[in-house]
């Protein structure tokens, strides 16, 4: 692994630095959040949950509707989350998803009070944050929908002018703050309930020894903590430091990479020592990762030239989101009327027929131009790889050809710029 790639691994203190040079992190976090919730909630059997003849928490019995309503909610939630993932009507889908997640979690809470239920409420907060700042999310269907109201000149200018390098990510700032508050509460509770017991090894080793005996599983790596008190003390202090420290680091504007990696370490250590996996937290941590830095490290150094039909609204709209990805200006967008002569004179190149990407001596046309475009962005390179494989390429080339050949018939094209101006 190269040093450049290694150095790109980190987390962002969005509270101190809410503005990024690209809207990428916000979009990746949205996809992670929605996908995680779909994966987690799609398996729940609400008929069984509703039919259970007992509740361990009776304070929320009012929230339990008939099983059929819960089943409808489950599938409605999947629909709203899918729309949220692609960024369609974000305010509405984020709010509805949050409400449904919180309601289903409340029903689940009547049977299980632990982390795998309460994590759903944290996810519900994150959804609300996305809804509150929906306009910040530029890499979304909503952004594309807004582009449909833009004039041809605005669309062309968006592609050809330098990108404004200031994109706020307030939903992630608020998620980081909420996690900081929740973990701070956890740390304070440990000090309040355990006091000085948390500063020696006894508490942790006793938890390990009694749990393994009670549940009848092997101590495994936990034996190391039991046998070497210094490691147990270090783990106890580390737990307190991270739980209390995240909020402090966030508020004073300190880097959060180390606390987050320590937290990640605990998320790996806890399953192997105590047999408990907080899988939900891994997704929250992933949402705060600096994906833009990784994208930059994985992207090729040299850029490409792209020639598009600036008389075709569909063509310009299809490139709209790529421009937001192109924070480092690796792609030079040229309207076909302003394409460099070296390209216009190339044999076989027909700008009226297709979009082109030029990478040195190589010219990519149509579907393959899109694939070359995807390859310019580190995080999208797996998509580019997939686009080069059959049957994706087989289908993709034919779809592109059909759309390109019929764009005047089916889509808004042939813009008269003199009239538009």
């Amino acid at each position, binding site marked *: 692994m190269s040093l450049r790639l290694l150095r790109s691994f980190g987390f962002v203190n969005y509270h101190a630095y809410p503005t990024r040079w690209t809207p990428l992190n916000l979009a990746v976090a949205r996809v992670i959040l929605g996908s995680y919730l779909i994966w987690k909630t799609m398996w729940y059997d609400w008929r069984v949950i509703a039919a259970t003849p007992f509740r361990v928490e009776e304070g929320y019995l009012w929230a339990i509707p008939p099983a059929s309503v819960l089943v409808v909610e489950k599938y409605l939630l999947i629909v709203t989350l899918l729309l949220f993932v692609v960024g369609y009507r974000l305010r509405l889908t984020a709010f509805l998803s949050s409400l449904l997640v919180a309601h289903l979690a409340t029903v689940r809470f009547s*049977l299980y009070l632990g982390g795998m239920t*309460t994590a759903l*409420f944290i996810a519900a907060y994150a959804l609300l944050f996305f809804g509150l700042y929906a306009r910040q999310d530029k890499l979304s269907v909503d952004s594309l929908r807004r582009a449909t109201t833009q004039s041809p000149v605005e669309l062309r200018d968006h592609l050809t002018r330098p990108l404004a390098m200031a994109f706020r990510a307030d939903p992630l700032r608020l998620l980081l703050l909420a996690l900081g508050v929740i973990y701070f509460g956890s740390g304070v509770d440990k000090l309040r309930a355990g006091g000085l017991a948390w500063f020696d090894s006894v508490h942790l080793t006793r938890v390990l020894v009694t749990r393994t005996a009670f549940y009848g*599983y092997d101590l495994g790596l936990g034996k190391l903590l039991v046998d070497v*008190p210094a490691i147990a003390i270090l783990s106890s202090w580390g737990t307190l430091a991270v739980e209390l420290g995240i909020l402090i680091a966030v508020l004073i504007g300190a880097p959060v990479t180390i606390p987050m990696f320590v937290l990640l370490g605990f998320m790996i250590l806890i399953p192997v020592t105590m047999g408990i*996996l907080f899988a939900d937290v891994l997704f929250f941590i992933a949402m705060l990762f600096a994906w833009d830095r990784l994208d930059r490290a994985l992207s090729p150094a040299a850029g490409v030239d792209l020639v598009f039909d600036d008389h075709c609204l569909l063509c310009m709209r299809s490139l709209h989101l790529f421009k937001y990805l192109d924070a480092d200006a690796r792609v030079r967008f040229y309207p076909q009327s302003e394409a460099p002569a070296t390209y216009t004179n190339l044999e076989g190149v027909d700008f009226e027929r297709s979009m082109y990407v030029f990478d040195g001596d190589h010219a990519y046309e149509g579907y393959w131009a899109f694939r070359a475009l995807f390859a310019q962005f580190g995080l999208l390179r797996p998509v580019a790889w997939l686009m080069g494989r059959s049957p994706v390429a087989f289908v993709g080339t034919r779809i592109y050809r059909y759309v390109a050949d019929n764009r005047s018939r089916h889509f808004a094209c042939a813009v008269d710029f003199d009239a538009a101006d």
Partner: protein
Amino acid sequence: MVPLMLFGLTTMKLVGMVFFVGFFVAAGIAIRFSDVPKVRKGFLAGFFAVLLVVAVASPVQPLPMIQWHKFSTPVPAEETLLQLRVVDSNGQELRYDERATLTVDGVYLHRLLDDIVEADPAEQQEIGVYLLERAHFHRDRVENPDPTRPFRFPPNFIYAKWSPKTLEGYDEFVNLRIYAVTMVTSDDGRRLIETREELVLDFALDGPSGDDVGSADATGLDQWAIGDGVATAVTPMRPMGVVA
């Protein structure tokens, strides 16, 4: 507390309902008018103020506000926990798998066991029938795994679950038993000095099992019988191991 009854809700439950509904009404308004900074900021200020109080100092969790308190209370040198076991027709015991209680994940079993011990006979019977039926269902699911299982969301607990191997040699499950397991650890918490257990309740679809159980109703059907209250040495059970 003076119980305020409204549609069968006590004061605390009513407050919980109003808070939950009020929270999402406020959130909906804040999102609808999120272009107005004052509205958005007002909602967020209230949100974080309540979250801080609940996470740090509140004795209750007014949903959707939660706290994340894990393993805060120190384990005493002598601790007693209730444990549920299934018993096959040959009298072999196996610790109940929490995942049996629901199709996905499970219920808060230790809290449920506390409730069962305190419940009236009719409730105990209903829960006993349910848990034994779920044990049969879960056993079948473990022995004939659903092909979608590897694709499911990772479970919270990854230890001590039933697997086809741990179920080998067990006949049909016919009883449930609740034991009070007492564990005594050394002062430094590194060694288990003593473990003893006491049968608290015994449940069978055909009435209580075993001659040694002090039965409340030896001829009744689907009954939980009260244990004899005699502490015994721990019954050796096969370790269940780790199942991902």
